[in-house]
């Protein structure tokens, strides 16, 4: 009798899981599932002989550095094969342009990069591209190649739902949490608040929820994701008080990749796949899809 019950339960679980996957297949544009991007045909001569793009297309495999812990940008839960988020969607467009199937995990490796190892991974060739909420800065450009931006975001504040904080100015002298080592934390200090470093964004959110800190801060897009996870308990407030230009990182050994990346991005801006990627991840019913940002010129090779 007991085994029967267990079996029935197992069958129910299996069915639920199956219907879940089926629903996901039918409704590719829904939130969190991402867009189904098809690999493009690569004709002979599309990439210049000897260029890194030609090598990657020839090899049919690529490694992309993404974040695993930022809902909406790059996030991988324990059960996902492929991370989800806007960064990942843009990565898929680049991968598809090389004639590689972005959903084939044997060809594409989405390696987790944390803030500290993005440059070392690119320099060592462990990843071919980095799309990990990677702000473009002059200092980073000394070490690696960065192009874009494909997204512009700004820092906002996340507070408890009943808080009357309206902007960063209300937080002078108060404790504000962000991830240790991030630019956001630096900006908090510059604004006169006390920075509280944490290991992950969810840890900060936990601190805001239980009242240990007054507020947390980072890119608005990440905060929206956290607020959505704790609906009714947390809210995003204030104007953006910094500008982060999110770009694609590549190795300085292959400067030819810059023009290619810009080309793919421009195409995505024009044919609407950029907007589609935004709506599938960061966008929601009440979020307006912004204009794609202007791309930086590639440095003369």
């Amino acid at each position, binding site marked *: 009798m007991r085994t029967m019950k267990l079996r029935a339960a197992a069958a129910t679980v299996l069915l639920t899981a199956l219907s879940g996957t089926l629903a996901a297949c039918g409704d590719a544009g829904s939130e969190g599932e991402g867009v189904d991007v098809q690999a493009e045909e690569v004709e002979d001569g599309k990439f210049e002989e000897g260029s890194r793009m030609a090598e990657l297309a020839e090899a049919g495999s690529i490694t992309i550095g993404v974040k695993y812990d930022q809902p909406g940008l790059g996030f991988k839960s324990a059960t996902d094969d492929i991370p989800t988020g806007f960064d990942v969607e843009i990565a898929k467009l680049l991968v598809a342009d090389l004639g590689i199937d972005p959903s084939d995990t044997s060809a594409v490796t989405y390696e987790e990069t944390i803030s*500290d190892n993005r440059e070392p991974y690119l320099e060592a060739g462990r990843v071919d591209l980095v799309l990990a909420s990677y702000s473009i800065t002059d200092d980073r450009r000394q070490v690696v190649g960065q192009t874009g931006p494909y997204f512009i975001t700004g820092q906002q504040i996340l507070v408890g739902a009943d808080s009357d904080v309206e902007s960063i100015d209300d937080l002078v002298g108060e404790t504000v949490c962000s991830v240790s080592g*991030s*630019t956001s934390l*630096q900006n908090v200090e510059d604004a006169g608040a006390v920075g509280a470093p944490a*290991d992950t964004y969810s840890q900060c959110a936990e601190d805001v929820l239980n009242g240990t800190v007054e507020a947390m801060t980072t890119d608005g897009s990440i905060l929206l994701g956290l607020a959505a996870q704790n609906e009714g308990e947390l809210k995003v407030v204030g104007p953006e008080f910094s500008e982060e230009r999110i770009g694609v990182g590549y190795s300085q050994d292959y400067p030819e990749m810059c023009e290619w990346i810009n080309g793919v991005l421009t195409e995505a801006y024009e044919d609407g796949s950029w907007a589609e990627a935004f709506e599938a991840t960061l966008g929601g019913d009440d979020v307006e899809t912004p204009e794609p940002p202007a791309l930086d010129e590639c440095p003369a090779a």
Partner: protein
Amino acid sequence: MNVVLDNAGDIALAFIYTLSLFVVAGVLSLIFGALLAAARVGPVAVLRKAAAVYVMLIRNTPLLIVIIFFRFAGPKIGLTFGFVDIRVADIRLNNLYAACAVGLIVYTSSFVCEALRSGINAVPLGQAEAARAIGLPFGGVMSQVIMPQAMRHALPPLASVQIALLKNTTVCGALGVFEAFARMRGLTNDFASARTEIFLAFALIFVVLVEVLSFVAYRLERRWRIA
């Protein structure tokens, strides 16, 4: 090296946090650890058992778990340290700092207790018996006869425990205190081109701090040596 010099003020502030954590946790863990050690060798069976359980429980738990307990489980049961809010110039000792400091004290005390107990065990039993024979109560035996001799034997292991504490403060850098480790992560992220220098500078400062500590311990050892 420019990055390090340009940010010398921030780095100094970070090390003030590191050192303040070390001093607060160091002094309090010595006091609490000494009480624990006294309980472990004392005449009251309940206290002996309680201290033994404390040491067994805390010494076998990773530091990170102890501090995370005070940082995240504590607030859930109403332990927020909200009453702590000390401001001295740019230094701000808040509830997060208190939670981290308490975690360090709780953890280090168990090691201090065991280091002291090793010292107490090294004092010949005759000393305690003689002290009791002249009518000293337990407190007097401990403070007048046993502890002064035990400290001499316990000094090297105690120094090791305190050196470990100084380096353990870096755990707080990921849990809400803007100390040296958190500052280093900020700098390595902002100045990707100068990472090696930043790492070396921070490692060097830690080496110097620990070296100072070792020197003090060595001097004490010599001063307290039996002539």
